[in-house]
């Protein structure tokens, strides 16, 4: 093992990565036009949060954070199933996935 790998990675690095992931998600959510990309941005935000959960769980030797991550992943999976179904339905109805053009709030 190289000394670099032996060294413990500092906490702030994980959190920084988590923040970067989350911010990428937010920015993606705000600027992307394609609905599927927006959806993926949401997943990115969730994973950024998951990373910070895991980090803290490891740091404080508490299992709660990891359990939270499982919950988040489960909800995300369900959300993906429902969300993709909605996206397909929207596409069938509107023949477009550009969020700017899906603004009528009714069918």
């Amino acid at each position: 093992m190289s000394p670099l790998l032996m060294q413990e990675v500092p906490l702030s690095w994980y959190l920084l990565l988590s923040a970067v992931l989350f911010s990428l998600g937010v920015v993606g959510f705000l600027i992307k036009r394609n609905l599927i990309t927006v959806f993926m941005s949401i997943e990115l935000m969730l994973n950024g949060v998951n990373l910070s959960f895991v980090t803290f769980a490891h740091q404080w030797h508490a299992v709660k954070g990891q359990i939270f991550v499982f919950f988040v992943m489960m909800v995300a999976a369900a959300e993906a199933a429902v969300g993709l179904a909605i996206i397909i339905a929207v596409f069938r109805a509107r023949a477009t996935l550009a969020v700017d053009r899906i603004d009528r709030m009714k069918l």
Partner: protein
Amino acid sequence: MNADLHLWLIPLLPFVGFLLNGILGRGLPKWLITTVALLAPLASFGVVLNASVLGLLPLFVDPTGIPNLPGVSLPYVETCPLPWISAGLLHIDFSFVLDQLSLVMLLVVTGVGFLIHIYSVGYMGDDEGYARYFSYLNLFLFFMTVLVLAGNALVMFIGWEGVGLASYLLIGFWFQKKSAADAGKKAFIVNRIGDFGFLIGMFLLVTNFGTLTFSEIGAKLAANPAWQGGVLTVIALCLMLGAAGKSAQLPLYVWLPDAMEGPTPVSALIHAATMVTAGVYMVARTHVLFDHSSFALSVVAIVGAATAIFAATIALVQNDIKRVLAYSTISQLGYMFLGCGVAAYSAAIFHLMTHAFFKALLFLAAGSVIHAIGGEQDLRKMGGLRKKLPVTFAVTTVGVLAIAGIFPFAGYFSKDAILYAVFLQGTNGRILWFVGLITALLTAFYMFRLWYMTFMGESRSENVHAHECPWSMRGPLVILAALSVCGGLIGGSWLGMEHFGAFLAPSVGVLPTEAGNWRLELILSVVAVTVALVGWLVADLFYRRKPERPAQYAATMPAGNRLLVNKYYVDEFYNAVIVKPLLGISKYVLEWVVDIGILGGAAWLLGGMATFAGAILQRWQSGNLRSYAAWLAAGAAAVLLFLLVPWATVLANLPAIHLGMAGH
């Protein structure tokens, strides 16, 4: 000794009749409606009879010899076991009281009421609203018996308002007719003024006595004989205002002539025999208050005398048979108040009773005439009905003789009792007595005028196929005629024989004057009967022998005649001084300024603000997903900013920073 009288059944039975006919009446066959409508007052009358027998037995039979003599001692109180109103120190029970006064009144109300129910079966037989009519009539009996039985002012007030409601409903019974609907409203609104007085009187009773129960008020006053006038005068005058409204006295009498728009049996029952006498009954019921205020008593006497002669003069020239009787009722009620005003309550109640007999009789007979000639009420178009309507003619004759005060008919005794009591009250009493005497003259004149114009002479209209009314109408007429003949003898207040007064004494006290002598009473009654006969003779002269005379006299006094024909322009006066300004204020101030301006403006302002705010805020709800996301992000950033920045520290240092900057 104390049997159970079940007084609560007396009002309840008509109420059940009201509910049955009022709710189901539309779908019931007519015979069933009639049965329900007649059984309710009959059963009620039966309970009253039972109560009166049990109540009177101990008075007339010496109980010592007879063990287990059934009977009750009056006053008999029946209180609802559930507490009714309990607020602080004030406790009011829902209680009924049977004493001599309410017993007399109950017999009149349920007895005459039952007769008029029977009469109505014939009179209203063809009307579409048959069930509605009887449900209202039963409702009236319910409230009237509550009023009469009331043991305290509040229960009385319930009945008081209720009979006003029933009166309104029945005056406006033919509500498709605008005049009838208007008359109903007029009666209701004018009565509100009186009820206002009654209410204020009750509030004053509560604040000054802490109770509304008549017996407790009487006991407190009896314990304080020195308490005279002052607030008692105010209370008595407030109650008198209520009584004047209900009993159609000056200045609130205007509703009663218009109330003749209702069916004639209603005029007989409500607007002659029972409801309008509620004011007299109330004054007699609260007589202790009046006894402690000589001023209030004088007011009652003067109002009564003034009303008596005022209404009698109007009745002289009316041509509508029912309106003549209406003004005559007002005039006779004035007599009763005159009697109350000299503390001769028993005489007033006596006159109330006999008046109920003969005035109900006269109204029902008038109804029979109207029924016979196809709804015509104008005296000028009648005449010569003597032969066509023999029964009606006979009973009307009895009624006219009774109201004119001819010996030995009922009206003679009661009017004599009142006039005699008034005469004993010193100089002022003599003046009031003279007014009463003139009124008796006028009464005899206009009643015989009515009699001549209706039955005597030749028929003044061609197309009349007059027919006598059915037995259901004739029966009550004959019974009431019999009562009008002997009702006075039952009372027996004559020439010193004060049976009726002695009977009522436990309820209303005895006249606090020195007993007059029977010679004086005989002279006075001879004078009264002579005056009545003079009235008859004048009417005979005017309307039989020289029928052109009235028109000639009217021509010599055009102004006076016009004044009487137009009823002293009181309606016009009220219209100009009260109704028009009220309507004006209602329209211009209350409707335009307050309703449309202030209230409508406020509503419009609130609604406008919400609409305006919505118009701006709706731009948020663009439907654009990214705009929502942006707001979400901004909101999350704001929350973070709020939570993470140590605001307390920042704010605490802010002045220092500011000062520090200023310092540099």
